[in-house]
């Protein structure tokens, strides 16, 4: 540090402003070492972003002439992640206190899991120095703080073991008194991985007077907590920002989604909005069959809307699709009394009782045989037996078969429209759909 060349380069990263910290506060030494590390690395200051958390350590970025981001408490890792993902070439260094590892614990875990290329300096002085010396996640058990006047009851967080166990690429623990700190910081930045340095230090305003802490007690504390110092962990996981680009590279330049218009090829005769409900079971292709009806309506020059209802546990229970087919634009997609309903299963029947009860004599209901409960409605009931198909229908084809039979009976769409919708995509499914449609037309 006494080398005049080093000092002049250091000034390139440190600005002229003197630090604001209390006498004896460890922040002075750590920031001097950070400045030395940056001088050693010789990165363009505009390409270095110091992302500072909240607390006294959060003031740090102001004393550097690099780029800086000073955000909200505990969230520094999230901003840093965004910066690194958008510009992987930037060197992003996070400065957070031990407080940030608590309120931002989820971010710490997940940034480590991603092994995103951030260098994280934890200014760990075992308490909240800026707000009055309250206890933090790293306060040792028994330590006195303004919020643990009888001694801390909680166990301190082992930051290093936590991030090491969860994907970090570089983990080091030491103190603000360590002479090799600047070399370790430079090493961590060069490592281009999630690199965390847990730097123990003294808060002379609160923690030191309340706990008789000193440079010596920091070393003793390591033994008391059975923790180690030095380079604790090194791993070669892929760095997230680079891995993301590598993984997504094959997609680069592929066409973006654009409207997929369906040209009218059939002439519909429907004169008023028609409400059709398809009520079946989860996994029974209710929604996909309904979608084909909607597409068939568009193929016929109509307007259609489809509203689906199903439980959050998608593979069980009911699946209901409510369709509106209309000769005019549909401005309201909410429920109305159905003109027709197709009940495909007991699960669906269990959900549409009120709608069935509201239906009137001129309305139509199509059901399959052997439902457990009776279909209670004044509407005219027609039974469609999937077993009557010329060949045995796989479970996934029952829905389209019944819908096709019902639509043919209802006559609301032109002949051929549903078949055209069911076969418009070039796929194995289209071939299967074509076969189902043929069976339904027998």
């Amino acid at each position, binding site marked *: 540090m006494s080398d005049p060349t080093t000092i002049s380069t250091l000034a390139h990263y440190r600005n002229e402003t003197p630090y604001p910290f209390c006498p004896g506060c460890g922040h002075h030494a750590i920031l001097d070492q950070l400045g030395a590390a940056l001088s050693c690395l010789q990165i363009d200051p505009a390409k270095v972003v110091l992302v500072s958390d909240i607390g006294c350590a959060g003031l740090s*970025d102001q004393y550097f002439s690099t*780029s800086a981001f000073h955000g909200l408490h505990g*969230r520094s890792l*999230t901003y840093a*992640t965004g910066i690194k993902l*958008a510009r992987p070439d930037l060197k992003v260094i996070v400065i957070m206190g031990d407080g940030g590892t608590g309120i931002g614990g989820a*971010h710490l875990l997940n940034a480590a899991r991603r092994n995103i290329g951030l260098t994280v300096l934890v200014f760990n002085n075992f308490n909240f120095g800026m707000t009055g010396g309250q206890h933090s996640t790293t306060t040792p058990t028994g330590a006195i703080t303004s919020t643990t006047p009888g001694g801390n009851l909680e166990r301190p967080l082992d930051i290093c073991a936590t991030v090491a166990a969860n994907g970090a690429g570089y983990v080091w623990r030491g103190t603000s008194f360590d002479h090799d700190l600047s070399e370790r910081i430079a090493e961590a930045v060069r490592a281009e991985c999630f690199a965390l340095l847990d730097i123990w230090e003294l808060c002379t305003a609160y923690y030191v007077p309340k706990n008789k802490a000193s440079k010596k007690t920091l070393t003793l504390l390591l033994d008391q907590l059975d923790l180690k110092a030095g380079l604790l962990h090194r791993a070669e996981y892929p760095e997230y920002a680079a891995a993301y680009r590598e993984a997504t590279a094959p997609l680069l330049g592929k066409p973006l989604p654009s409207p997929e218009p369906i040209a009218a090829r059939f002439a519909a005769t429907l004169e008023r909005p028609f409400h059709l409900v398809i009520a079946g079971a989860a996994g029974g292709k209710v929604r996909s069959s309904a979608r084909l009806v909607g597409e068939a309506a568009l193929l016929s020059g109509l307007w259609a809307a489809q509203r689906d209802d199903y439980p959050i546990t998608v593979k069980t229970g009911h699946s209901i699709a409510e369709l509106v087919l209309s000769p005019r634009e549909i401005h309201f997609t*909410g429920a109305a009394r159905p003109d027709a309903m197709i009940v495909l299963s007991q699960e669906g029947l269990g959900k549409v009782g009120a709608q069935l009860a509201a239906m009137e004599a001129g309305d139509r209901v199509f059901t399959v045989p052997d439902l457990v409960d009776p279909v209670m409605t004044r509407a005219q009931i027609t039974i469609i037996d999937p077993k009557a198909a010329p060949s045995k229908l796989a479970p996934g084809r029952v829905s389209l078969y019944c819908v096709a039979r019902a639509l043919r009976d209802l006559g609301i769409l032109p002949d051929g429209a549903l078949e055209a919708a069911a076969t418009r995509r070039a796929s194995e499914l289209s071939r299967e759909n074509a076969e189902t449609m043929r069976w339904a037309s027998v």
Partner: protein
Amino acid sequence: MREFTDGSTAIVRGALDAGCTFFAGYPITPASPILMQMMRELPKVGGVAVQGEDEIASIGMCIGATLAGARAMTATSGPGLSLYSENIGLAIIGEVPLVIVDVQRLGPATGGATTVGQGDVQFARWGTAGGYPIVALAPSSVAECYSLTRRAFDLAERFRCPVFILSDKELNMTTTTVDVAAYEAPAVRTRTQLPAHQKPYRYLPAGEVPPLAQYGGGETVRFTGSTHDERAIITKAPAKVAQLNEHLRAKIEAHVDEIEMVVHDAQPGARTLWVSYGVTAGAMRAAAAEVRSTGAKVSTLTVQSLWPVPERAIHTALANGITRVVVAELNHGQYRREIERVAAGTVEVAGIHRVDGELITPGQFIETLQTADVAR
């Protein structure tokens, strides 16, 4: 030509066409389809889409990425918007362009995950500490989901602030028919680079907004969520802090006319004005068409720019013989408050409010008409 699609898809296409390059979000019904589509689409333009560990991380990543040159969007629903709160404040004070999609569902709390609601209207406006203004747009159709998303990116860039898209479960998850000619494509300004040696912030004249300073150019860039001067240096000097905060207010409130978007469908001789927004405005359009076909008279006002309140347009809609206003919304009257404030007692203001998870129907609008509206 028409297509069979939904609001989620339209918002994603709007974002991509507007130049979005970064998305971060956390799974939540009914906003998840946007997250899933953005994960699939953004790599195609060399952009980045991430699923954050929570909503706080997601919006935080968006803010960081924006400062590093990205144009960012996030999408959530009420419970997630609650977690966005602190970072909305950060984006306001740091003047970060950001598009926030809130696909509203019935609240409070978990509420109804798959149930429609419009209960976040005042929350979007007042959802962070300090009370500073934001911009919020409410699409009332799938086609508007596309055009207003484009508009949101433009306004975010223009005013360097969070711009909300207040959509809802019904618009985003119901598949419907859109005439592809209805997709309007408002221009989206490109991001201009802050000229060399210029300060990243400007407070005078109040309301002027310089280009965003981005990391990774030739110069160092500072950013802070604390009160700061034009160089982004933290300050508590009362005169400078007052300038900053007045600027944050004025840059939006002094430009209401530039943001204002309404559809005023005035019928000569109408005494009743229906006011609505979002999905409920669809039922209003259907109701108006229906009653007008019977000879009844009603005017309608669809408010697309909910915040700042387009007071000039509302005053215009309230003039010309309107004696009664009915505000329809899927909450207990959140925007009705604003209409009442603007009307200031000059007309009667009533409301249609629904919070049972169902949509307000055209019939509910029609029921509000009185003898004077239907008698000819």
